[in-house]
C-alpha cells in the first residue's frame, strides 16, 4: 500500500492562480478582438500567428500548473487519511486526457478531492459543492467548443469562418469562466486542507 506524505501546495496554487489569470486575460483579449474586428482577425489577420502562439502557451502553461497543483492536493488528502479514493494522484490527473472518460472522471476526482479535503476520515458523507459542477460545465464548454472549432478550421473551407468565429468566441468566453472557477476551486480546497480543524482531525 502506497504511503503519501503531506506537502504544502500553497506555492503551487499561487503560481497556478497567476497562470490562470494570465490565460483569462489572453482569452478576454481574443473575445475583444473577435468582437471588434470580426472572426477573420484571429484566423487570418496580421496578429493571428503571434496571438495563436501566446494563447497556446498560456493555455497549456496554466493547465500544466493547475494539474500539478491538483496532483499535490489529491496526494495530500490521501496523506491526511482519506481512503477509498479512486486510483492514485497520477491517475487522477491522467483522467483529464483519456478519451470518453475525460467527459466525467475529472469531475468525479475533483469532487472527491474537495470532499476529502473537507473531512479526510469521513469524506464520502460530505455534500457535493455546486461550484464543482459549474467548474466542470465551463471546462467542458471551453474544450468542446475549441475542439469543434479546430476541426471546422482544418476543413479549410472559407464558408465556415463565421461558425469557427462563433465557436472560438464561446470557447474563449467559457475559458475565462472556467479559469476563474478553477481559481475559486483551488483556493477553497487549499483553505480546507490547511484549516486548523482539519489538520487536528488528520493528526489526532
Amino acid at each position, binding site marked *: 500500500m502506497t504511503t503519501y506524505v503531506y506537502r504544502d501546495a500553497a506555492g503551487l496554487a499561487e503560481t497556478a492562480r497567476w497562470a490562470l489569470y494570465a490565460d483569462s486575460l489572453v482569452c478576454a483579449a481574443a473575445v475583444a478582438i473577435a468582437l471588434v474586428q470580426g472572426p477573420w482577425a484571429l484566423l487570418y489577420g496580421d496578429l493571428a500567428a503571434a496571438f495563436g502562439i501566446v494563447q497556446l502557451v498560456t493555455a497549456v502553461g496554466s493547465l500544466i500548473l493547475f494539474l500539478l497543483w491538483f496532483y499535490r492536493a489529491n496526494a495530500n488528502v490521501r496523506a491526511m487519511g482519506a481512503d*477509498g479514493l479512486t486510483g492514485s494522484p497520477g491517475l487522477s490527473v491522467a483522467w483529464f486526457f483519456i*478519451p*470518453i472518460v475525460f467527459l466525467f472522471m475529472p469531475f468525479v476526482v475533483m469532487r472527491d478531492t474537495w470532499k476529502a479535503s473537507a473531512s479526510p*476520515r469521513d469524506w*464520502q458523507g460530505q455534500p457535493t459543492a455546486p461550484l464543482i459542477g459549474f467548474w466542470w460545465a465551463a471546462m467542458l464548454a471551453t474544450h468542446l467548443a475549441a475542439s469543434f472549432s479546430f476541426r471546422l478550421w482544418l476543413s479549410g473551407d472559407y464558408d465556415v469562418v463565421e461558425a469557427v468565429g462563433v465557436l472560438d468566441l464561446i470557447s474563449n468566453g467559457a475559458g475565462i469562466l472556467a479559469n476563474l472557477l478553477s481559481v475559486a476551486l483551488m483556493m477553497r480546497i487549499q483553505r480546507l486542507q490547511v484549516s486548523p480543524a482539519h489538520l487536528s482531525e488528520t493528526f489526532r
Partner: protein
Amino acid sequence: MATSTIDGTVEEAVLRRRRPKMSVYDRILFRLDDGSTRTWAKAVVMNDVADLLTPGTRGRFYTFSAIDHRGISGVRTDDGREAFGFGRVNEYAGLGVFISMTLLVILQMSLLDGVSVWALVLAVLGLPLFLLYRQTRLDAEKAFKADAGFRPAARAA
C-alpha cells in the same frame, strides 16, 4: 484499485434499491471504536453481504473502490457470521466491450477499408476496464482470505 477494511458498528444503512443478487445503498454509516464515523456512499453490496449490514452489526467490513464504483465486498461479525460477494457485471462489461469493439474494428478494416474512431477508442478502453475490475475483485478476495479465522472483538459491556 483500492481495498480497505473498517472495524466498527453499522449505525445506519440506507437502502436505495435491492435487486435479486445485489443491493445499492445511498449510504452506510459506520461508528468506529474511537467514536468517529465513516460513511460509505453509493455502496454496491452483494445480497449475501447486505443481509448482514443491519444497524447494530459489529465487526470487520471489507470495502473496495474502482473508478466511481464503491462497495462492501465482505463482512465478519463479532458473533461469528461472515459473508463475501463481489459483483462481476462491470468486469464482464469491460471484456464484452473490448471483444465486440475489437471485432468491429477488424471487420471494418477488412470489409470497409476504414475504421470508426469510436470503435477503436472503446476497444482500447474496454481492456483496461476489464483488467481494473478483475484486479479489484482479486484484491478483495485476497484481503478477505488473508483474514480467515479472524473474529472481531465483541463490544465491551
